[in-house]
């Protein structure tokens, strides 16, 4: 049954994905297993894209189907697995950058792992991040960015956090595209992550250290 879902998502068959997810949920299938199939499928989509077989609209569409899936699965997820509440995270793609496929996956993985995610969307100015952190009292700020210019926006966001007197209360992690430790140092963030699972691991580490 898992293969069905993986194949449907890889083929970008929106209706089929919806049907399979619905019938598996109604049959009492483990929602985490469903999301794991989604992860597998997204990997294949990513590989096809890297090989020049798939193009950006297909990558974007896969991301949208995934979003709809998450919405469908979520109510079952909380019921079934009684996820332990982990804490709050403010997330967004930084100013000047509108890449959100990677960020959405990070948000989704944090969510299924028990975090309360406040996603501010894309092209988010430093001020908005700071306001949201203040409002939610979230101890974690997760910044995504794929463009070279995003490094400056990340830096400005970390500085804005410091200006608001919040720097020692909030852990900042960054990710997306070519992010490396050198860039992390440049931006003044605490940690960087290569993929969504790394983001979850970092968030857990931040909470444990609190």
């Amino acid at each position, binding site marked *: 049954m898992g293969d069905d879902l993986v194949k449907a998502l890889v083929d970008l068959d929106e209706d089929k994905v919806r049907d399979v997810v619905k019938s598996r949920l109604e049959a009492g299938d483990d929602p985490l297993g469903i999301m794991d199939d989604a992860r597998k499928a997204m990997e294949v989509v990513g590989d096809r894209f890297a090989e020049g077989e798939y*193009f*950006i*609209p297909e990558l*974007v569409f896969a991301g949208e189907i995934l979003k709809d899936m998450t919405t469908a699965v979520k109510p079952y997820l909380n019921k079934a697995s009684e996820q332990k509440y982990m804490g709050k995270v403010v997330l967004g793609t930084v*100013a*000047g950058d*509108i890449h959100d496929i990677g960020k959405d996956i990070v948000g989704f993985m944090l969510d299924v792992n028990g975090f309360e995610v406040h996603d501010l969307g894309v*092209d988010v*100015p430093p001020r908005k991040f700071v306001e949201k952190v203040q409002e939610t009292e979230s101890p974690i700020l997760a910044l995504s960015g794929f463009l*070279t210019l995003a490094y400056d926006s990340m830096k400005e966001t970390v500085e804005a956090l410091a200006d608001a007197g919040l720097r020692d209360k909030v852990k900042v992690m960054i990710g997306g595209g070519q992010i490396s430790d050198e860039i992390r140092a440049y931006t003044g963030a605490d940690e960087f992550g290569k993929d969504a699972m790394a983001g979850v691991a970092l968030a857990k580490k931040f909470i444990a250290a609190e």
Partner: protein
Amino acid sequence: METMLSSASREVVVGGERPTVLIGERINPSGKKWLKEALMKDDLDVVRREAVAQAEAGADVLDVNVGVFGIDEKAMLPRVVETVMGAVDLPLCIDTTDSAALQAALEAYDGKPLVNSVTGEEASLSSVLPLVKEYGAAVVGLVQDDEGIPKDAVRRFQIAEKILRRAEDAGIPRQDVIIDCLVFSVGSDTSSGSQVLEAIRRVRGELGLNVTLGLSNISFGLPDRDLINGAFAAMAVLAGAGCLIVDVEKVRPCVLAADLVAGKDSHARRYLADYRRRK
């Protein structure tokens, strides 16, 4: 509305029922490793050749950009401007986000250039507009501001209005403001093309300003880009874009065909001349 640009020996006018003015985009090191390396080695011959090639391909104006990590724009931009002025007699479009580099390039330029660009961001408006005024240049207003990147035609129009107001406050005549309606790829958002076309119609119709576009962004991330760029060029011409920033060699035949169909090429002179050139 007519925008006049000039080099030391030639004038180019954008607007009215004139044929579409093509601004050659190729002197720009981002994404062109060979050009970046040449600039790093101070090899300006490459720039000269690229300028001549674009002029021969039918460019009306050349965009000049040297903004890439590792190059001192303030020192390099005026030198590249001088090199291109020495190689061709086309007016130039000085493309930088660095106001010190912009001033140095304006100082070096002979004629009335197009400055690319000012945005609706406060920092940009206050640093770029005074220089445009001081040197009597024309300016491209890119519809982006402190609130971010516009998604629809309405926001694009609002930012265009704001840039125009601020330019006029700075003493720049309205015909010297050309609005870049900011194209994004239809790869991620299929409504992006139609929003830009709507913005062009409004900026032309309600503000009366000339419009330009960085055309090839429309096809970013898609295969067979020239096909999409050609289709979009035709629609942009019809919507009223008076000048386009493009890879001239690739896009010009399509634009000439579009100009002809839109009634901007009397007796098909330009279309036929280019047909014979291509043969």
